[in-house]
């Protein structure tokens, strides 16, 4: 274990903080206790001294001095507090008239005030509390108490308090050490895993046991690591795929140019090579444009330029764009008629059209000759959907979740033209519109739905005319 340093341990700091609080509490309680016992005792002694002194002065001040002498002797002999009581009467000349003090303070003693003095009482040294006041006949009356008993009590209380503070300090330090060790032990698992990951073992996870804060922290971090690992794999896969997808067309371009140069450089041969190279480069530009499009859609930057889009119209437009292609591929392309006016969403028309086009394109490519592709824009609760459904061979359920990965291509499609980015783009477009892409096995075929939040139509927005003279003559 690392050497103990306070600044290096939260556990120790916490325990010490709590300990300091505890010690403060004990000190406060002790102070209250101390003044509640020793203080009260001292005050009651003071009260007694003054009241006895006053009583003697009032009762006997005007009477014959012999009566006071008798009373004092009686007090000293009555057995009540006799071992601590102090009485003395001195004559104006400073001689003792009566009392149990052997020595007493000189004339400088302040009158009418409680004072502490070291004196000799009955021949023994005594630490005393003393009250001196003059009597009407000129004598001085000393009344007091021996304090040694009170001192003993005070010492006892203080010792007890010191012991309590000492014990609690020991407990605090021990607590700090224990909780530090406990926290250290819980954290060491996390730190160990972090070091492992730092050194490249990305599949390492924090061992989680129990259900306390650290266990929860551990599983949170584990989930985060899962996500990061997944993203890392995705990025790695994407850069591999990009490298591969760029290398193939680049190789082709290079081969064509090389071929053009190696042959007898006739103009037609060179032209052919140049054309081939341009085609290849166009493919590359297309691929890069798609990747840029995904990046743009995923960054969600365009949301501020969203407008109200009528999905039914987008679906119709795209159906009319693809009808010839479907015809050629021997596919029946059908658009389900929908209640107009309500399928509005907030979005970017071009991007939504791109998504729909991509879904139709896929359906035509993969459904096979003779299949039917149905397009619809139904309303589902708070959402509007664009549904493209085919009754072709469909996609194996195991492959469905992977369809939206960049560059993923189902086995059957690997020899078809394409780059495995189409559905990635569709999914990214759906996400940037606050929606999602759902791919379901339609048995038979595949049903692809883009679900988008629904926007309410403005009253002024009448259903659009599919074609009118105005837009025919407006080129």
């Amino acid at each position: 274990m690392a050497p103990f340093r306070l600044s290096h341990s939260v556990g120790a700091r916490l325990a010490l903080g709590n300990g300091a609080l505890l010690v403060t509490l004990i000190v406060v309680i002790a102070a209250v206790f101390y003044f509640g016992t020793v203080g009260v005792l001292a005050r009651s002694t003071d009260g007694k001294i003054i009241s006895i002194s006053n009583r003697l002065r009032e009762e006997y001040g005007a009477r014959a001095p012999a009566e006071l002498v008798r009373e004092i002797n009686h007090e000293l002999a009555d057995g009540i507090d006799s071992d601590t009581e102090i009485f003395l009467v001195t004559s104006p000349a400073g001689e003792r008239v009566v009392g149990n003090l052997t020595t007493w303070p000189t004339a400088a003693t302040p009158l009418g005030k409680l004072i502490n003095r070291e004196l000799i009482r009955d021949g023994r040294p005594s630490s005393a509390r003393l009250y001196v006041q003059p009597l009407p006949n000129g004598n001085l009356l000393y009344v007091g108490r021996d304090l040694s008993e009170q001192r003993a009590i005070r010492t006892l209380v203080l010792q007890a308090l010191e012991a309590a503070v000492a014990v609690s300090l020991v407990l605090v330090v021990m607590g700090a050490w224990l909780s530090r060790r406990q926290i250290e032990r819980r954290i060491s698992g996390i730190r160990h895993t972090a070091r492992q990951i730092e050194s490249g073992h990305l599949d390492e996870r924090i061992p989680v046991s129990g259900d306390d804060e650290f266990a929860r922290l551990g599983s949170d971090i584990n989930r985060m690591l899962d996500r990061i690992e997944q993203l890392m794999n995705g990025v790695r896969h994407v850069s591999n795929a990009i490298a591969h997808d760029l290398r193939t067309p680049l190789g082709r371009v290079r081969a064509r140019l090389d071929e053009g140069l190696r042959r007898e450089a006739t103009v037609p041969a060179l032209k052919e090579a140049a054309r081939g190279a341009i085609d290849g480069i166009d493919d590359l530009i297309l691929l890069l444009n798609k990747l840029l499009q995904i990046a743009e859609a995923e960054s969600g930057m365009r949301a501020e330029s969203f407008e109200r889009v009528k999905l039914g119209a987008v679906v119709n437009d795209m159906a009319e764009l693809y009808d010839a292609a479907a015809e050629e591929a021997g596919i029946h392309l059908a658009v389900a008629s929908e209640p107009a006016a309500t399928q509005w969403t907030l979005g970017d028309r071009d991007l939504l059209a791109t998504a729909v086009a991509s879904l139709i394109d896929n359906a035509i490519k993969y459904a096979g000759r003779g299949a039917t592709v149905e397009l619809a824009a139904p309303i589902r609760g708070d959402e509007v959907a664009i549904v493209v459904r085919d009754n072709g061979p469909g996609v194996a359920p195991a492959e469905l979740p992977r369809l939206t990965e960049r560059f993923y291509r189902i086995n059957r499609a690997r020899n078809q033209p394409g780059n495995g980015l189409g559905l990635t783009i569709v999914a990214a477009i759906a996400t940037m519109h606050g929606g999602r892409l759902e791919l379901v096995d339609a048995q038979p075929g595949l049903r692809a739905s883009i679900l988008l939040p629904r926007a309410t139509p403005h009253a002024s927005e009448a259903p659009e005319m599919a074609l009118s003279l105005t837009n025919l003559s407006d080129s």
Partner: protein
Amino acid sequence: MRSLVIEDEPDTALYVCNGLRESGHAVTCCDNGLDGLHLALNEIWDLVIVDRLLPGGVDGLSIVRRLRELGKKTPVLILSALTSTDERVRGLRQGGDDYISKPFAFAELLARVEALLRRAHPAQDGTELRVADLALDMRTLLVTRGAVPIALQPRELRLLAYLMRNEGQVVTRTMLLEAVWDCHFDPQTNVIDVQISRLRSKIDRGFSPALIHTVRGVGYVLGERRAGVPGVP
């Protein structure tokens, strides 16, 4: 035709200027925004081609804006490496007449330039479009080849009308997508080719001469004879 090309990137500038010169344009090249603005405002041009991002403190869009503020209707084609729809829309809203993203094929640029110039000098727009014996009546939407009526779907009518309006001029796939289907993205498949071949089967099959011609690597042209396409071998 006097064209002004404002483009700071030397390779692109050379590519565009040489191409336009070979196609018979008188071209002035300018490599920064400040001079470009000065030239665009103080001389008379048939066409201005301007790069979206330019050095010299004046960018392409502000040149277009300035031109429009002064009420000049010179056709402007914006070139840009910024390909997103937002940028395109911004370019057009500021007063650009067309927007083409880099990288582009020169044939695409030329086709768009010629379409812009035609638009700036429109032919008389009658109620009937006619190319050889093919006629499209804009009021009744009836199409006839000779005396034979031809049935077309609405979108095919729009496609045919666009091709006829640009008779003898090459139109690219992207131009067709934008004008006929209002698509400002590249569906990256052969949808347009298939649409054209269907239209061709309706208006050319069984008739002579063929009117719709493919221009390899560029697009299509509608006309009695295949028009010579400058800049394209």
